[in-house]
């Protein structure tokens, strides 16, 4: 596993180029390229945000920044998890010819989704400016929060990549699962509209803690200690499982393709 983790440095030229070419490939021959993703997220945030602020009778100024950040982080998480499932199958020609650490593929996808995230992040800045949310010193918590999310996504990617290559059905299951999670996580709705006795829906939801970790700082508050603690716990669990799977099956993956 150490070999898989140090690959982030040793193979930086490879995964960064692969990830970057994925972006180029997707937006080839389009005039504004990846900014299309900014536009599509922007339209979604604006329209759904406006509608739900009416439904929940919340101020648009309160719901929109909340939703914009939640949505943008969610796209990073769900995008990475979805693509991690197919990453080895997708690059099987590569796996069958070049012996590189499996993590190179995870870093490639992570880099790809991170670049998309940066494009989407423009919306967060725009919405924050629009509703006069000011970044404060607390906002700096955003950076460690984001770093932890990326770390967790890395371990999850290794787990999903290995399992989904062996059991192709899991890819479909993950897709359905993520669709459900989207509605059960306070992304476009706020936790305070949830009746007290259903608080467990968010408290037991890992995705809630992940999102809060970067949403609180961007809204000018420091995240609760519990979010950090849960996040550490998830990372440790995911790392342990990723470690085990990599050790046991790292060399089997190519035979499963």
């Amino acid at each position, binding site marked *: 596993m150490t070999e898989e983790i140090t690959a982030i440095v040793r193979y930086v030229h490879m995964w960064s180029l692969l990830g970057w070419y994925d972006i180029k490939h997707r937006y080839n021959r389009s005039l504004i390229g990846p900014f299309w993703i900014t536009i599509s997220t922007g339209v979604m945030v604006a329209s759904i945000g406006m509608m739900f602020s009416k439904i929940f009778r919340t101020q648009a100024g309160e719901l929109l920044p909340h939703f914009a950040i939640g949505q943008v982080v969610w796209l990073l998480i769900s995008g990475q998890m979805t693509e991690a499932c197919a990453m080895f199958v997708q690059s099987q020609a590569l796996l069958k010819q*070049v012996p590189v650490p499996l993590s190179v593929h995870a870093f490639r996808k992570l880099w790809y989704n991170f670049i998309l995230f940066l494009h989407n992040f423009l919306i967060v800045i725009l919405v924050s400016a629009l509703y006069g949310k000011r970044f404060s010193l607390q906002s700096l918590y955003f950076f460690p929060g984001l770093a932890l999310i990326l770390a967790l996504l890395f371990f999850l990617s290794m787990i999903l990549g290995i399992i989904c290559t062996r059991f*192709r059905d899991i890819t479909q299951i993950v897709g359905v699962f993520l669709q459900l999670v989207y509605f059960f996580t306070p992304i476009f709705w706020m936790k305070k509209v949830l009746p007290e006795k259903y608080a467990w829906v968010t408290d037991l939801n890992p995705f809630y803690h992940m999102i809060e970790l970067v949403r609180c700082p961007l809204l000018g508050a420091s995240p609760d200690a519990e979010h950090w603690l849960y996040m550490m716990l998830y990372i440790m669990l995911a790392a342990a499982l990723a470690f085990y799977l990599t050790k046991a099956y790292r060399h089997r993956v190519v035979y499963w393709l």
Partner: protein
Amino acid sequence: MATAIKAQHLKIFYPIYGSSSRSLKKTLVRAATGGLIASDARGVNICAIDDVSFSIGEGERVGLVGHNGAGKTTLLRALAGVYRPAGGSLEVQGKIASLLDISLGMDEEFTGYENIYMRSVLMGRTKSEIRKQLDDIIQFSELGDYIGMPMRTYSAGMSMRLAFAVCTAYPADIVLMDEWLAVGDTEFSKKAEARLMAFIQSSSILVLASHKPEQIQKICSRVLTMSHGHLISDEKVKGTS
């Protein structure tokens, strides 16, 4: 350390998962039924390489022959470090150039330049190494101004020439090849042949899998014959330099 390949009792199994045994349901059902239908769900293992031992030293040019499915490509992939042995051992010392699929990573949508970078990076080359070889690659492939155009505008021959030029641009200790590479029309193929020969000359070990006996006779100093995953003969080729 000296360039060398050493295989001892090498074994490689492929698990064959049909769409059924690859599904989670089957595995769960198997777990739940306590192995009653295990024989059905376990699938089949194909033994692609069975108990193969050989060693190849510096300067050897080895031809790998055998009918389809004899295990030649699997063996090349094992040498490339892609397939881990299921049994026995395999030691490979030296930098490997794997020419199994020369256009790996190249994409129609990208320009010649971009494809040169991608192909080279996948061969484990750094930016500075690539920059050094860039002119040579462009010149050899005879693409001229097309090098800045997307590869979809190339003819099949042009794409092949580019892939070939990149793959043979960086010297390596061990060259692995699945069938002798022949690219281009008659005139270009002579030039390509010369470049490939020079590339092989600069390497220390060549392993070439081929169906063409005359090609093996021409290039190789030693022939390994495979059949059904076994190594059935290992002999020197007479009259080679």
